[in-house]
């Protein structure tokens, strides 16, 4: 029962101590991706701050029902986007997530797609609800 054979140190660290877990009340953007049938469901909240006319992600939080990989990808993506300008954050790819975690097993790559998708959709959600 050695999950360290399956997951990198970084992944396990994020599972043990998930960052930014929970809910943001009145988020500026939120998205729920995945579904119960496939087993993983991830919700990402973002709070936006305007500085010098530019949008920044001030805060990001996640809630996830899923396997270890799903938990770690959702945890790490919140740390990757916090404080980043929105236009930079939205360029984060699933490969970048996998790299930040020190790799994922091949069967778990789809979890990183889920996290990247959640971010993209949360940003979309923000843009749509803040269109003038």
């Amino acid at each position, binding site marked *: 029962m050695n999950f360290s054979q399956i997951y990198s140190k970084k992944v396990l660290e994020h*599972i043990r101590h998930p960052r930014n*877990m929970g809910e943001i009340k009145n988020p500026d953007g939120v998205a729920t991706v995945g579904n119960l049938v496939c*087993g993983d469901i991830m919700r990402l909240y973002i709070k936006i701050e305007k500085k010098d006319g530019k949008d920044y992600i001030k805060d990001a939080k996640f*809630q996830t029902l*899923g*396997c270890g990989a*799903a938990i770690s990808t959702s945890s790490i993506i919140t740390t990757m986007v916090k404080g980043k300008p929105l236009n930079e954050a939205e360029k984060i790819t699933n490969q970048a997530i996998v790299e930040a975690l020190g790799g994922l097993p091949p069967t778990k790559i789809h979890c990183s797609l889920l996290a990247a998708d959640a971010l993209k959709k949360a940003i979309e959600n923000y843009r749509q609800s803040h269109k003038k």
Partner: protein
Amino acid sequence: MKPIYLDHAATTPVLPEVLTTMRPYFSLHYGNPSEPHQWGQQARAAVDEAREKVAQFLGAKPQEIIFTSGATEAINLAHKGLIEAIRETQDVKRKNFTPHIVTSSVEHKAVLETCRHLEKMGWASVTYLPVDQDGLVNIKDIKKSVRPETVLVSIMYVNNEVGTIQPIREIGETISQINKLRMASPRGSARGDNGELKIYFHTDATQAIQYLDCQVAKLGVDLFSLSGHKFYAPKGVGVLYFKKGMPIVRQQDGGEQEYRLRAGTENVPYIVGLGKAIELVQQNKEHSANLRPELRSREFIEKLREKLINGVLKIPGVGLVGQPKKNAPHIATFLVDGVEGEAMLLLLSEKGIAASSGSACTSGLLEPSHVLTAMGYRPEQAHGSLRFSLGQGTNDEEINCVIKVLPEIIQRLRKMAPKL
């Protein structure tokens, strides 16, 4: 903290006395059993003795025991070997004859994938029977699905994921009745040439060896597969029992070993180990009343499991799969609402506890357990499944520890999940 192993349905450790029995057959008595010199004959005698022990355990003849690399190989040989033998004889008489197999949808992959292979090659057609909420096949369904071309019924003895015991004896009786009618019906009756085809009955008994009656005559089986490492013998050795005289063609070609049914030099030390382990199981079954409580495997394990079940079911949103009282004593499978199985396994392993899950994330296939879905559970329920399987080393403190840490783990993961 001492690690807690509750995955005995996956595999068991090799018992010290089993290992001791095996040890001389690596470097001391290393002869090839096919050779006539003393080295060879010493190895031959050891293999024969192990075969004798297995035969005794099953109430069979030594000539009906084939050693294989495990249950998977035994199952492949049973299914493919029988179908090939029947096709050989039937092809001569009739064209377009496709043998038919009846099996269940909750079998181990070794059976399901072998059946799919036979279907894919066009060598057999297969009916996969449904099961009820408890994982049981219905004998009426077996009767209904039998066709004139049916030559094999393959139903597992104990389900590895949930512990359901199939009514093997009753199925055996049913098949025997059908066979009697078939054999009695004269040539040219409603079935035409099929009148002489018998239905053979295979059971995958991998999970049944330690706790259930394995007398093949009582069960009414013609083929019976087992694997050593589920009962404290090493991995890499198993057995196929096949009723003497039944049609079977070997699937591994080569030398004359194993009554010409499984070529290749015998894995002598492992065969010796399996023989010893099965002897120990038999002693345990026979003398359990005289043994110390911790050695009375069935009662002992059932009691510990009951404690585990009572403790785990106190957690809200946790349900039990099947009816453990009617099931094999060593398996307890739970469904945990709102939590994914692999995440539970991971946090359990952080506490030094090994269990198993039918969640998609643990399968590598990204599909939830075919057993749980066949039992009517939704995929989202199956993703939250958690199996504990107990064994000889399991004790009270270990169960207490699981009961203590599991609620915290479930709570922690539920707190992480979004409200839907």
